Structures are given as C-alpha cells and as structure tokens.
C-alpha cells in the first residue's frame, strides 16, 4: 500500500490550515480584483489620455509575463527598493494585480457587448452618461460576464498554489514541508491533490450551473406564470 492512512490523518490538521489560507487568499484576491478590475476597465475606456495609457501599460505588463515571475519579483526583488511585504501580503498584491488585469478585459468586453440601441434609448430619455452606465449598461454587462468572472475565480483558486514559492503557508507549501519531513510524497501529495479537488470541483460545477441559468434570459419570477407552463418549457429545452 503506497497510501499511508495514518500519516494522512496526521497531516490533515496542518493541511487543513493550509487549505484555509488558500481559501482566504482566494477570497481576498477575488473580492479585490472583481472591484479593481472594473475600475481598471473604466480607466481603459477613459477619455483622459494619460490615465488610459498608464492603465493600458499595466494590463499589458500583467498579461504578458508569468504570474510566477510576478510573485517572485514582488516578494524577492521589491525589498531591494525598500518595498518589503510579508509573504501573504505579497501574494495578495501580486495575485490581485494579475487577476484584475484579466478581469478588466472581461468587463470591457461585457460593456462593449451591450447593444448600442440600449445606450441610444437611454440617452433619448435624457439619461446622462454616468446614469446610462450605472442603470442600463453595467447591469447588462455584468450579467454577460458572470460566467467568465466565475471561471477566473476558479482559476484564481488554483493559481494561489503558486504562492507556495514565496513561502505563503497555504495548502501546497504545508504539503511540501510535511512531505519533505516524512519522505512520503505519495500520501501527502495525494491528500493535497484531493483537497484542491474537494473545493475546485464543486466550484466548477457551480460555474456550469450559473452559465446554464443565465442562458435562459430575463424572465419574470416563475410564480407569476401559470404553473403548467413550467414543465412544458423544460421539455422544449
């Protein structure tokens, strides 16, 4: 038997702590980049030349270099110019900056995907550009990009494992330490694998569910429709 259940049980408490750190890092970076990404998207569509181009440069930089190098740079290189971050903070900053750049592109795509007729109709009513964005374009754009955003969130969850390289005590890092101490790489890494899967799999199922649900379009609450309509609609799908 390659897998050692006793050792696995032993490792479980430290690995669970690691998983907690992984999840916390995911949530923190996810939350930050969902918001920051939107602002980056706005900045990229700004009419101010300088802002637009600076932000554009940031996005291109993030997209054209490996995340691993970005993390290493922030943690190991930046201290030389006086920016010293502890591992978790460095990982938080690095991942957030990286994911925000991608999400900004997603948001921008969503905003541009809202038909021009919508802005025309809103403008014709007398709405100002900021109101049009907030009340008409953004609600539709967000809905368009939700499947994409949730996919990126799952990727983010997996990418947090790169933070092990800069000594963040997350799941992979704790697994590495434990494995190196006991030499039972098979048991430990199987367990690490399973723990990523335990979170990741439900997450991708959720993404699929959301995608399906959003495909249906905008409909009134089911309760407002005659009950017999519902099974009929399901059948025709």
């Amino acid at each position, binding site marked *: 038997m390659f897998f050692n259940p006793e050792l696995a049980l032993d490792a479980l408490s430290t690995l669970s702590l690691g998983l907690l750190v992984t999840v916390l890092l995911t949530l923190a970076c996810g939350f930050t980049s969902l918001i920051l990404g939107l602002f980056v998207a706005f900045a990229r569509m700004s009419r101010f030349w300088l802002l637009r181009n600076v932000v554009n440069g940031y996005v291109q930089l993030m997209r054209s270099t490996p995340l691993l190098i970005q993390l290493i740079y922030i943690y190991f290189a930046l201290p030389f110019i006086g920016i010293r971050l502890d591992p978790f903070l460095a990982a938080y900053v690095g991942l957030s900056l990286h994911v925000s750049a991608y999400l900004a592109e997603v948001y921008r795509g969503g905003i541009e995907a809202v*038909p021009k*007729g*919508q802005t*025309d*109709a*809103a*403008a*014709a*009513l*007398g*709405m*100002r*550009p900021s*109101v049009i964005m907030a*009340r*008409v374009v953004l*609600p*539709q754009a967000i*809905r368009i990009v939700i499947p994409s955003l949730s996919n990126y969130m799952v990727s983010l969850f997996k990418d947090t494992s790169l933070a092990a390289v800069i000594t963040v005590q997350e799941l992979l890092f704790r697994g590495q330490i434990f494995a190196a101490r006991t030499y039972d790489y098979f048991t430990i890494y199987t367990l690490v694998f399973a723990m990523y899967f335990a979170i990741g799999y439900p997450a991708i199922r959720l993404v699929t569910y959301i995608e399906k649900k959003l495909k249906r*379009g*905008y*409909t*009134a609450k089911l309760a*407002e429709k005659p009950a017999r309509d519902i099974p009929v609609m399901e059948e025709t799908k």
Partner: protein
Amino acid sequence: MIEVRGISKRFDDNEVLTDISLTINDGEVVAIIGPSGSGKSTLLRCINYLEPPDKGKVLIDGELAYRDVKGNELSKAKIASTRSTVGMVFQHFDLFPHMTVLDNVCSGPRFVSKLDKAECQQRAKDLLERVGVAEKQNQYPGQLSGGQQQRVAIARSLAMEPAAILFDEPTSSLDPELVGEVLSVMRQLVDDGMTMAVVTHEMGFVRQVADRVIFMDYGKIIEEGTPEELFTNPQHERTRAFLSAILSHTERTKPEPTSDPQTVVEKPSYPIVLP
C-alpha cells in the same frame, strides 16, 4: 417647435445628409418617407443629437439645442436635459431587457427626473393602461410580442412627458399582424395633439394622420407637401418612382413599371410581391 437648419452629416465618404432644413410645428405630425439609405433615420437622430451633425443647427422652441452659437457642444447635462423633452421610439424597440415592463416605463422619470418610486409607478401604470399592456407590467420585455414591446416603448417615451416624439420606423421590425396595434396607439397620440415626426413605410397611416409628408432621397429633401398633394400629384420623378414602387407593394398588386427603374432596382429594401 423643432427647427432644423442646414444640417449635413457624412459617415466617412458617404454624405448621408446634405443641408437639410425642416420645421416641425407644435401639434404637427410630419411623416418622413423615402428609400432606405436616404438619410431619414439619420435626420431623426440628429434632431435629438444621438448623431451629432457635422454642420447646421437644431433649435427647440426657438433655442439652440446641443450647441452654442459658436458651434461648441454644450455640457452633457444640458444635452441630456434637452433630449428629455423630445421622445424617441426606435425600430427595434430597445427596451431595457433587465427591467420589468413597469420599470422600463419608470426608467425616465426615476433616473432622469428623479421622481419618487411610487409616483413613477403610478404614472407608468396609467401609461401602460393607455397603450393597452397593463397586464404585462411585471413581465420582462423578452416575454412580450414585438407589438407589445413597441407599445411599451411608446409608453416609456411618454413617461417623460415630451413635447414631441420622434418615431424611427416604429413598425418596420414587426410581424404584419402586429403593425396595427402599434399604429392605433400612435393614432391615439395624434388625436391627443402630440407633435410627431414619423419615419415610416406605412403609407396608409401617413395618408390618414400626417399633416405634412417629406420625401427624402440621397440625403436631401426632394419634395414636401400634404399627403394629398404628395400622393396624388408628386412633382418629382424620384418621388413618383418611389411611391409607385411602395404603393403597389402595399396594395399587393403588380407594380407599375416605373420610368426610372434604377430607383427600384438599386433599393431592394421594398420587396415587390408578384401575384
């Protein structure tokens, strides 16, 4: 009163409007007809500045709208507030799909005039009643037929209590059996004395309700007059060709051969139905 003075507009190399001038008096119903690509829609869109004209000006109630005397664009807020006085109804309805029918109609009063919700909703319900879709108020636009959607769009535009409404081919994307319900709502508006500019191919409607008909082609106003004058005694060859093509189509009879077949051949947007 809406005055358009010397408006020109080009998209790249294509001159869509050439020096158009036009006045729409209060309470007047002006129909704008012409082949597709003749600039009718662009003209309407210039009137509420959805399309900024390259040259010329628009005056609303005698005041310069959208631009100052020197031709500089006014502030976004000023432009928006002028637009709120001129309603517009679009070919593809362009209702907001993420809002219920009621919220669609409320959207102007709530987000532009900042009225409180209860007041907006009451007004919206009254309007939906008026256009005959009150029972659909809690549905989403996607659940309505095209005719219902367009009537909601008319209600949405009425909610701002505009001084005039621009109709940009309001029935062109509707199934034939749904055209009537939209036209009858528009007829109601005419009876109520609404100032209207209507780009349309519904010649029967034009004949019935328009005070004045404007025929456009190649970005110019070729001819204008009462429906009576224009339909029975068109002065220009192009007007004649257009009318004979479209009327014969509308009446489902074999089209008269026109002396200027190019007009028909080049503009295939009016499919001629042969018996």
